[in-house]
């Protein structure tokens, strides 16, 4: 079966979710473009968008339409050639409209998993629940005569367990998109010893066509991305808990969040990142990973407590940020949660005294937005971090310790065999988390 034939009938499980809808968008556009190739003209292409939520599926069109439109507008030079055989389509606007209509017509929104019984390729983006994934894979595989390939978007469940549990004989691999899939350039590719080589080759071609940067990861719970993020987040939580012995908890949260953003030159502080991922998702992934880590305890009482109080973070359907550790207005943090009082404290009421405790930031400081655009980024970062190391302020000490811990986590991913190289770890953090520098560095030595 050729690449094009494999993509003629595809199903996406969990298609209306945050990740599933992004995978759906990228895949349907790839299928549409294949359908426009002269040799594919007239062949049917179908993508089953499968989700348990009828309501969420109904909302998919609102998401897909504008997104496909944006994609079409960026490849107009190619589209004019692709629709060369349509004399009725003359202006760019007419061709773009037709392309959007054609693309959306490939998508079939369904709630029943039976729709996947005719597919050659199944993308899975359901909850991080191993048993659920195995159940779905088994059911589809037993009823699908084409021996389909299963690409799972899991960010934490080992692939070999899914292979074994659903008895797939190597027809499964991990294709882990980053959030949001339509924007993030990174994809982690996880194969097992028994993954079919042709499935891996297909996955690499697919990633290339989607212009994704592929980083291979060994089949170990959490892989590289969550392998770093979960430990990094847990360290941040522990630091906040440690500081809270001397100050109100919300002030400790504020300080650790500020240090991880401003002092470590990251796009957002660690608690804002947890909110972005979702407190519920972070807790769940830790729970999935923890049994596979005999010498670690990847668990946080604080996350459990937040969940018990119903503070979950994550995003609303329109993509806006829900409140979590931080409170947001128009996407910007304006308050911070006080777990003792179970209410948000406005940042302005505590930022002054907290900033004073952290001490002055060295004048060589650069912010993340500036840093990522600098040609001499490493030189500027080295100068700033050198000044941090030579500073006695609380903020500098917290930052240097944090930088070292991040480095240690990154190195451990390599030495424990999760990542194949230091470069792969850094690529994941640079590309998938938009960091200005990789965690494995010499800045904090």
């Amino acid at each position: 079966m050729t690449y094009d034939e494999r993509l003629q009938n595809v199903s996406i499980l969990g298609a209306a979710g945050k990740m599933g809808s992004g995978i759906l968008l990228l895949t349907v556009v790839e299928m549409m473009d294949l359908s426009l190739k002269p040799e594919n003209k007239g062949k049917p292409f179908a993508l089953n968008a499968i989700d348990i939520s009828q309501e969420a599926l109904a909302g998919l069109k609102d998401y897909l339409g504008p997104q496909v439109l944006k994609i079409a507008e960026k490849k107009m030079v190619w589209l004019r050639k692709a629709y060369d055989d349509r004399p009725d389509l003359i202006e760019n606007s007419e061709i773009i409209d037709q392309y959007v209509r054609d693309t959306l017509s490939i998508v079939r929104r369904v709630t029943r998993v039976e729709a996947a019984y005719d597919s050659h390729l199944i993308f899975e983006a359901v909850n991080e629940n191993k048993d659920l994934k195995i159940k779905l894979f088994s059911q589809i595989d037993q009823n699908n005569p084409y021996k389909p390939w299963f690409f799972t978007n899991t960010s934490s469940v080992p692939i070999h367990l899914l292979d074994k549990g659903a008895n797939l004989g190597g027809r499964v691999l991990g294709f882990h998109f980053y959030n949001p899939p339509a924007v993030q350039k990174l994809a982690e590719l996880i194969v097992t010893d028994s993954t079919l080589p042709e499935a891996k080759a297909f996955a690499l071609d697919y990633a290339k066509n989607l212009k994704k940067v592929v980083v291979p990861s060994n089949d170990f719970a959490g892989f590289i991305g969550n392998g770093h993020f979960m430990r990094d987040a847990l360290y941040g939580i522990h630091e906040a808990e440690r500081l809270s012995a001397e100050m109100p908890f919300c002030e400790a949260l504020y300080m650790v969040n500020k240090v991880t953003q401003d002092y470590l030159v990251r796009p957002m502080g660690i608690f804002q990142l947890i909110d972005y991922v979702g407190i519920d998702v972070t807790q769940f992934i830790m729970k999935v990973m923890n049994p596979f880590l005999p010498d670690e305890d990847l668990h946080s009482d604080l996350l459990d407590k937040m969940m018990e109080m119903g503070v979950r973070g994550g995003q609303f359907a329109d993509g806006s940020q829900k409140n979590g550790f931080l409170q947001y207005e128009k996407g910007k943090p304006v308050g911070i949660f006080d777990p003792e009082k179970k209410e948000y404290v406005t940042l302005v009421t505590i930022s002054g005294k907290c900033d004073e405790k952290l001490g002055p930031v060295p004048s060589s400081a650069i912010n993340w937005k500036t840093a990522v655009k600098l040609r001499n980024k490493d030189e500027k970062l080295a100068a700033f971090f050198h000044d941090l190391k030579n500073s006695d302020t609380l903020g500098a000490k917290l930052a240097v310790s944090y930088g070292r811990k991040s480095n240690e986590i990154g190195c451990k991913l390599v030495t424990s065999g999760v990542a194949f190289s230091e470069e792969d770890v850094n690529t994941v953090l640079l590309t998938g988390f938009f960091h200005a520098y990789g965690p494995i560095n010499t800045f904090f030595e």
Partner: protein
Amino acid sequence: MQQLRRKVYMAAGYNTIAMGTGRSEFNPKKPRPGIEHYIREAGQGTLRQIGGAPHVDEGAIGNFMASRFNKQGHLAGFIPMIDEGLQFKPCTRTEGACASGALALMAGIRSVLAETAEVVLTVGVEVQNTVKAIYGADILAGAGWYQKRKNGHAYFFPGQFSDRAGAYYAKYGQERARKGMGRWFRNAVENARLCPTAQEYENKVEDLEAFYHRMKLNGETFVDNLNVLDCSKVTDGASAIAILSEEGLQRCGIPKDQAVEVVGWAQAERNITQDPPDLTELTTIKKAVAQALESAGITINDLATIELHDCFSIAGVLSVEALGFASPGEGADFIAAGHTARDGKIPINTTGGLIGWGHPTGGTGVHQAVTIWEQLTGIAGAAQIEIPKDRPYGMTINMGGDDVTVVVIVYRRAG
């Protein structure tokens, strides 16, 4: 020299800011002024210099595609909006693609010559940032023959001039040509930095030619033979100028030395349904320039400065050859040697031209006239060049479509 039945002057020019990407005020995500704002600002800018609307006999407005960019036709009706005093006066709208502005100038010149008006308020306007560039390309493609659109490029006019550039590269050498085109871009931006209303006024790139040459040609995302720096940007803007007789100058209280005299012109039209006879030559411009020089009784050696239609850098190169400053195939060398820079043999586009100042399509012809008026009367500010006494003439070349509608006007300082 062709003897005119009466003298025709221009004075009291005004340009709005050339608004679009590159200007710090421009934010495509925020609401922006509509076309009427630009018409009003430019028109009032001229009225203030001529003693107000009562001195005006007629109005003329040049515009290309407001009907699609702004969903607005019937632009002559906006002239009385400029000032209550213009209500019920005769007004005309002209359209000739990117030469619409110069056609408005010609309408004004003819009215004065016909003695039906002593003072004509002339405006040129286009507001194009209402749509994304990819849809703007559809609208601007209306300057070509609609039957060519289907097989044309996504970016139709960049595609047309990319074909011209490709033919030029094949005939005379790509490296040589692009060296001249890179210098053209540098001149455009350097001149624009001297003009506060220019779209590239705030451009801060240090080594412009190096910047130009770093941007490689990529036919997969744009056209084969041009990069985006070879192209004028999408611009919103308007310009206005008064066209007057002797009596009109007196009525408005304008001293002659603050006006320019129109001493010659030519207007030429090529069959839009036919391909250009030679892609490496702007044939219509060549003919119109020769006619305009003849009508003025001068040669190119009498010109102090020229505003020409560099919608694309290759159009600049071909225009230099059409003017006769360089032989075919040597225009790029002439430019690369600095001869068209503001301190060169023939300073061209001294406030940036279409690539540097901006290209509000239907407004460009009027903007060119305003720039020549400023230069010849010595009020161009930081952009002022020296006008040699033995070469007192200025020229504007306004082109619509791919060398289809061309208006060339020759000026000298009055008085």
